[in-house]
Structures are given as C-alpha cells and as structure tokens.
C-alpha cells in the first residue's frame, strides 16, 4: 500500500482552535499539533489570506462551480505577475488559465518574498519557515528586484501540484481506488478505468482535509502546456475598457479627497499656516490640517483640494540644507573620487603597478544625474481610520510595508489594518516606499471615520521623490596592442541607495554604505576577461532621499562600463562587438547573448546607419542590445531600432518578457535622452513632464526581442531591459559622430531626436 493512500486527517481549522492554537487575523498559524509530513509547509496555511477557510492551501481556492481563485501576493504594476504566477499554478493544477480569478491576500507569511530575502533559489522546505521568522520583524510581502518569478517558480508550481494531488486523492477515496489510478484534466479528476469524472469544485471540500505523505513531483519541462507559451494576460480586458481599478480610482461612500504641500526645502518643516481660515472658506474645502509631513487640504473633490493647497501660505523652518545645489553635489562627488575608496568589492592583479608603468592610460570620467520615477499614476493612497481598526486602499509594491505604515501612524495594531492592494499605475521602485502611505494615514487619522483619498499632484510627486542618485564614475584603462584589457580601474562616487531606502523601512536591517552591493552592481564582476582590475566606490552622504529606481545600480553602471568598454575597443582599433566577444571566453552565456544580438541587430551592416552595442547582466538575467540610428542633420538623429537578446534562464511567458524588454528599453531611453533632476537652494528644480520629459511615440524605436533557450533557473525580467539602453545609444552616437557621450542626459549635449 502506498504511503499516499494512508489518509490521515490533519487538524482542521475548527479543531485546531479548540485545541488552543495561536490565532492571528482570525486564521490558524503555528506548527504545534500539525503532522510532520513534508507538505505541511503548504498545508498549514489552508485558508490563510483567502478569506474564510475554504481554500485548499494559501494560494488556491476552488468554488463548487469550478472557478479557481488564486491569491497572488505580488503587486501587478504592468509586469504581468497576475498572469505569470497563475500560469505556474495552473500548469500543475491542470486548470484552464481563463478560469482563474486573481485576488490579493492580506500580508501574511505564506506570501513573503523569500527570494528577495535570500537571493537564492527558494527551497520549498525552508522557504516558509524562514518567511515566518523574518515576517515577524521585517515586512517582506514585497514586489521588486525582478524577483516574482525567481521566488515563485518552484513554490507556486508546488502549490499547484500539491492541490492537484489532494484533489486526486479525494476522488480516489470517493471511488475507493488508489490515487495512481486517476488523472487530471482541465479542472476534473478522471477515473482511468471507468472514465468517470469529478469536478475539482465538487472535490474541493474533501480535498482540503487530505494529507499527502510527500511533496508531489513537478512536471517535466517537456510536459508543460502553459509555461513557456504566450498566454494572454488576465488583466488586459479590464485595462482596455477603463474598468481596471487603480488606487486613485477608489470611491467610497462619504469619502473625502485631500491634497498636500510639502516643505519647500528637503528636510525642512512646515511649522504653521498663515491663512487657514481663508482656505477653509474656499468652495468644497472641509479642513486644513498641519501634519508632520506637510499641510493637507481636505475637500469634497480632488481638484478643490488641490486649489486649496495652492492657496496655502505657510511658515517654514528651512534652516538646514538650503545650500544644496547641483553644483555643491558635483563638487562633493568629485572630492570623493579622489579620496580613499570606502570599499573595493572587486579586485584582481596589480592595477597600480600597470597604471604607473604605462603611458598609454585611457582615462575618462562619466556622470549621471538624479532621476525621478514619475510613474504614470501620481502617488495616492486612501485610508479609513477608526478607533481600533483601519483600512487602506493603495497600489503599493508591498502590502506588508503598507500595513506597517498605517499601523504606526494610525496607532492601530497591525492585525487590525486591512490592506486592499489595487492595480499600480506603474511602480519602478517608487511604490515600494512608505512615505505616501504614512502621509495619507496622518491625514485620515485627523478625519476619523471618514475614508480620505490623498492624491499628490504631479508636481508634489516629482519634487518629493526618493531619487535614483547622481553618480560619477572614473575609469583608467590600459589595453594591450593585441586588444587585451591589461588594467581596468574603476572608482564610483555615489550615495548608498540601499542604506537610504532600507533605513526608511527598518533601520536595523539597513546595510552600511560600505556593504551596499547596489552601489557597484553591474560594475563589479564584469563578464569580460581582464588581467588586472579594481572596482571601488566612495560614499556620498546627503540628506537627499534616494531610492530603488528600475534596475537600481545597474541603471547607471551599465552606462559607465559599457561606454568605457567601447572606449577601450576604439583605443585598440577594434570593432566594439569583436572586442567584447574576444573577452567572453569564460562566460559562455554572455557570449551567446552577444552573438545573438549582433545578428539580430545586423551588426556590421553597410546601410548608412550607425550602431552601438551593450551587454549587461542584472537581476539574474543577461541582456544584450544593439541600437541603430540614422543621422538626420547636424546633431539630429532618429533612433530606428533596438535589437534585444535576453537570457533569463527558463521563461514563463515570453510575450510578457518581450513587453518588459520593450518597456525597459524605452524607460532607459527616457533617462538617457531627457532625465535629470537638478537641485537649487535645497529644492528640486523640475516639477512635471514639460521639464522632465519622456520618450513618446515619435522618438520610440521599433524593438525586436529574442529570448535564449536553456534550462537554467529563471532570472528576473522587469528590470534587466533598462540598463543596456543608454550605452547602446551612446555608443551608436559615437559611431556616428566620433563624440563620446560621458554625461547623461544626452539632450544637454545638444542632440535632438525624432
């Protein structure tokens, strides 16, 4: 008799409560009393986060009508995760993807992003133990770092496979046969002998009482029907008829709308309101509130609230930071370049000896500015604070950060904070921050019992961002006559993003600047063979808040390294593609990507166009891009075409990946061409799209994408498309003009694009 057949009831939710289990949010957690079988890690979350305990496990609920509900603890911000996670589950569960409805669970431990915590392939046995421990301290139900698929690839398939086997066992019990005698198809269990069928919906109640003796086997790749296909996204129908609900679309009975103004200098404080009565007398305005973060005007409509906010006259204490300007920042960064590095994360050979011995040193310093995220949906958050509970509706990358933020400001325990995660009108790292939730909660707390939607105008959003930091990167290189890189010396001056951003989440988890790998990600450990190298950085300390911006350190480091690689190629008199290729002997995956993208981008074509190439690995995936441009006039170009090859290991939905490459390239190009946040008297100069412009249709290139075929574990795809875009374009401009772009944005050098 197989082990699986010896059915053993586990504690149901009800009898577990009677035996005195620990309760949180009304649902069962705790290991005590649960059996020791391998699948307990999944089983014990039955019902959690899925409403009343009718689900098979924490991710899957099947209704009597065979409708499948899947709890996705990741935020849908355009990357397609509301489709890719259901694909992983549906593949193993054997249900049609179209039958799946996605819901957002509350921020509970089964949904923690364990890959983000460990940066390792999750081990199903360890992942949830770790999640439970860490979740007690650090909110980690989080979407970011291109980790949703690396985190979910095994776990979500196991969630589906476990549920499938439980359903099979329930049917086998019903028929009095062994589980091996039944199979599954399209939401039904089939009796192999009699061909009788039972629907998952009919079996679901019995299935959730089944205990499996062991974790089921996952399907072989060759048996996949859904993973690897261009399945249509589940969220698209609502996104073409205007019904998709973003945070800003939340409408509640009796709700009010708020607008806010912030201190005019970073780190400043608004201490008083001079014309409170005047503003409170304006049409539709209900209250003018001084909060810790700024002044809010609460009205019966967003526009009236904003008009009130524009009328405010306030007293401010801006004694600090007024001296901060782009010029002072530049001076500080330059000084850091000349100081001893804070850390040298990548070093080999003796760079100094070669540099001092050689009179053919190529030396260049590159520069990038601060950048704003400028997600399309301006930041907003709707909160209802009651005496001992609170509710929040927001498009946020982390339901657990949201819950913690509301809890802290509202003074309500976390378990009494209900989080409703809507669609996000873009995230890009900005919506992983808690500031807008803290502010909206502060407003709602002063308006107890009334749901208040606080919307930040584009101007307030842009001037109070957590920016991608400015940086300088200095290279000294020596290239041998045969084209070998003899020495590569790179020093970066930048503010630590991880230190700044994680301090805002929980200071005790924030890495020290010297340990912040984001600073050198994509600059250290390059794939190219180099005899002697040193990659170091120095830390710029600043009251400016910096944050994770799509592709983080790689967003600037790819521009630096891949531009300087081009400089080295030209110094050696070699073709930039061949020059790179010759140095990829020890990194075959990089080599394959580079060869593929050169072919896709018609590298070397004699067609009167100019091309630039770049190769970069970030978030576990290798991306090569070739940019093709046409000269239209003096310093006038069209960006005709981007070719892109990505090796992201095993892939889930190739159409989504292509979309992420397309979007990632455009995102990189917007920054390369126009993106700059500058500082004057402690404030940001730019305020809205007219002075912080984006690539639009007329400038946007055509883009073709190739996904490499292999069986490696999946890498991320949301960010890796962005980093190579700027250097590919800058290298193409060099090919066309002989002028090296060493500073972004390119528009500052007088180039025009159409």
């Amino acid at each position, binding site marked *: 008799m197989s082990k699986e057949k010896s059915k053993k009831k586990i504690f149901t939710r009800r009898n577990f409560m009677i035996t005195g289990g620990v309760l949180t949010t009304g649902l069962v957690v705790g290991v005590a009393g649960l059996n020791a079988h391998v699948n307990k890690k999944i089983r014990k979350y039955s019902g959690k986060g899925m409403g009343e305990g009718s689900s098979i496990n924490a991710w899957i609920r099947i209704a009597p009508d065979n409708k499948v509900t899947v709890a996705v603890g990741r935020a*849908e*911000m*355009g*990357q*397609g995760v509301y489709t890719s996670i259901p694909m992983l589950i549906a593949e193993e569960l054997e249900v049609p993807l179209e039958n799946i409805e996605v819901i957002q669970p509350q921020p509970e431990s089964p949904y923690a992003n364990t890959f983000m915590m460990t940066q390792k392939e999750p081990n199903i046995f360890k992942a949830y133990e770790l999640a439970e421990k860490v979740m007690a301290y650090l909110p980690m139900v989080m979407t970011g770092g291109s980790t949703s698929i690396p985190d979910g690839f095994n776990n979500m398939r196991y969630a589906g496979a476990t549920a499938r086997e439980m359903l099979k066992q329930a049917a086998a019990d019903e028929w009095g046969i062994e589980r091996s005698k039944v199979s599954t198809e399209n939401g039904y269990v089939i009796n192999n002998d009699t061909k009788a069928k039972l629907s998952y919906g009919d079996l679901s109640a019995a299935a959730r009482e089944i205990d499996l003796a062991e974790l089921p086997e996952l399907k072989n790749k060759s048996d996949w029907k859904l993973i690897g296909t261009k399945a*249509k996204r589940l*969220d*698209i*129908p*609502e*996104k*073409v*008829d*205007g*019904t*998709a*609900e*973003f945070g*800003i*679309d939340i*409408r509640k009975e009796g709700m009010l*709308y708020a607008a806010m103004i912030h201190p005019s200098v970073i780190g400043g404080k608004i201490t008083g309101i001079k014309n409170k009565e005047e503003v409170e007398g304006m*049409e539709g305005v209900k209250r003018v509130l001084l909060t810790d973060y700024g002044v809010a005007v609460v009205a019966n*409509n*967003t*526009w009236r609230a*904003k008009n009130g906010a524009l009328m405010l006259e306030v007293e401010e204490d801006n004694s600090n930071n007024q001296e901060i300007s782009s010029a002072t920042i530049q001076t500080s960064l330059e000084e850091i370049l000349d100081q001893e590095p804070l850390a040298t994360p990548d070093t080999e050979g003796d760079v100094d000896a070669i540099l001092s011995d050689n009179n053919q040193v190529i030396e260049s310093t590159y520069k990038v500015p601060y950048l704003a995220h*400028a*997600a*399309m*949906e*301006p930041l907003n958050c709707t909160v209802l604070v009651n005496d001992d509970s609170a509710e929040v509706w927001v498009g946020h990358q982390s339901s657990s950060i949201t819950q913690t933020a509301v809890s802290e400001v509202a003074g309500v325990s976390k378990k009494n904070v209900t989080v409703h995660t809507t*669609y*996000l*009108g*873009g*995230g*890009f790292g900005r919506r992983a921050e808690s500031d807008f939730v803290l502010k909206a909660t502060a407003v709602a707390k002063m308006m107890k019992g009334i749901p208040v939607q606080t*919307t930040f*105008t*584009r101007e307030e959003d842009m001037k109070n961002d957590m920016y991608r930091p400015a940086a300088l990167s200095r290279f000294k290189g020596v290239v041998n006559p045969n084209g070998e890189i003899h020495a590569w010396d790179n020093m970066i001056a930048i503010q630590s993003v991880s230190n700044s951003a994680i301090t805002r989440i929980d200071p005790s988890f924030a890495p020290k600047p010297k340990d912040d790998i984001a600073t050198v990600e994509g600059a250290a450990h390059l794939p190219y063979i180099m005899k002697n190298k040193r990659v170091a950085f120095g830390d710029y300390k600043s009251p400016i808040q910096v944050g994770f911006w799509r592709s983080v350190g790689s967003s600037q480091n790819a521009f630096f390294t891949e531009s300087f690689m081009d400089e080295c190629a030209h110094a050696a008199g070699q073709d930039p593609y061949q020059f790179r290729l010759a140095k990829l002997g020890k990194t075959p995956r990089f080599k394959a990507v580079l060869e593929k993208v050169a072919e896709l981008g018609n590298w070397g074509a004699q067609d009167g166009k100019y091309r630039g190439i770049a190769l970069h690995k970030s978030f576990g995936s290798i991306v090569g891009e070739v940019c093709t441009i046409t000269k239209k006039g003096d310093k006038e170009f069209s960006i005709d075409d981007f070719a892109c090859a990505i090796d992201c290991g095993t892939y889930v939905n190739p*159409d989504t990946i292509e*979309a992420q490459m*397309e*979007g990632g*390239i*455009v*995102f990189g190009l917007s920054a390369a061409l126009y993106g700059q946040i500058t500082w004057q008297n402690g404030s940001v100069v730019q305020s*809205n*799209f*007219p002075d912080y412009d*984006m*690539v*639009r*249709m*007329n400038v*946007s*290139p*055509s*883009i073709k994408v190739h996904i490499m075929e292999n069986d490696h574990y999946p890498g991320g795809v949301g960010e890796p498309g962005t980093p190579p875009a700027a250097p590919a374009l800058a290298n193409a401009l060099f090919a066309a003009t002989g002028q090296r772009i060493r500073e972004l944005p390119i528009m500052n050098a007088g180039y025009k694009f159409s």
Partner: protein
Amino acid sequence: MKLNINGKDIDVEVEPGMPLLWVLRDELNMTGTKFGCGVSSCGACTVMIDGVATRTCTLPVGNAQNKKITTIEGIGSPSNLSAVQQAWVEHQVPQCGYCQSGMIMAAEALLDEIPNPTDDDIDAKMTNICRCGTYTRVRAAIHTAAKLRSQATDLLGSL
C-alpha cells in the same frame, strides 16, 4: 449644467471652471479617464469632444456644454469591444494600463480622422506618454484596428 456624456444627458452642479476631468472622476465617479499631469502634457485624461481627442485636465467643464463627450466608458463593452479595443487585446498592449484609456481615446479619434494612418500620422497624432513604454504595441495595434474597421465597413457595404 447639462452635459452629454456617452449619449446620455447628465446634470451636474459644479463651478464652470472645474476641469472636465474632475467632473468625470470625482463628481460622476467615471474613473476610466485618468489624471496624469494636470497640465495637458501626458494625455492620460484624453476624451473625445465632438469627435476630437481632447485633454480634459485643463478644459473647463463649462466649455464642454452642448457638446458630445465620449469617454473610455462609452466606446465599447466587454462583450462588444470597439475595433481599437480588440486590437489592443490582440497585441496585448497595456502594461500597468494607467495611460491606456487616454491612448485608446487618442487612437479612436485618429482613426476617425484618418482611417488608414501611416507611421508618420501615428507619430504626429499619438503624443500621449506611456511610462511603461508600450509604444511599439500601440503602433501595431493602431494598424490592426484600421484593418478591423475597414473590414467592418466592407461588411456593412456588402449587406
């Protein structure tokens, strides 16, 4: 004040200077039309007014009286999508989706004016921002929608 939205007459009581965007979103709870910049720069708030793509974040509602206002809610329903919406689904255009109401309204107006647009026409008329960078798909979908529309016209003609 009387407005005609998606073929229906609607009464609203607001100050005539309020931008149409906020009348739609906050007074009528028609949230399909989006706020992106408030300064006529991004196109997220685009609707059609008497058939012309119009940015509503700076358009005083008073100026929209006695005109036909068409919003994203008025061009098709899930069971009866417009040609543009069908093409959007076919090409899987939206990412975050936030700009897409405005993109779709701009595309509807473009195709009403130029049934078979060239790439240059698309460049000239589609000036909305998509921060997610869906432009290549928007372009492809507009060409597909143009075909779908002309097939529908042919079909009508042959009846």
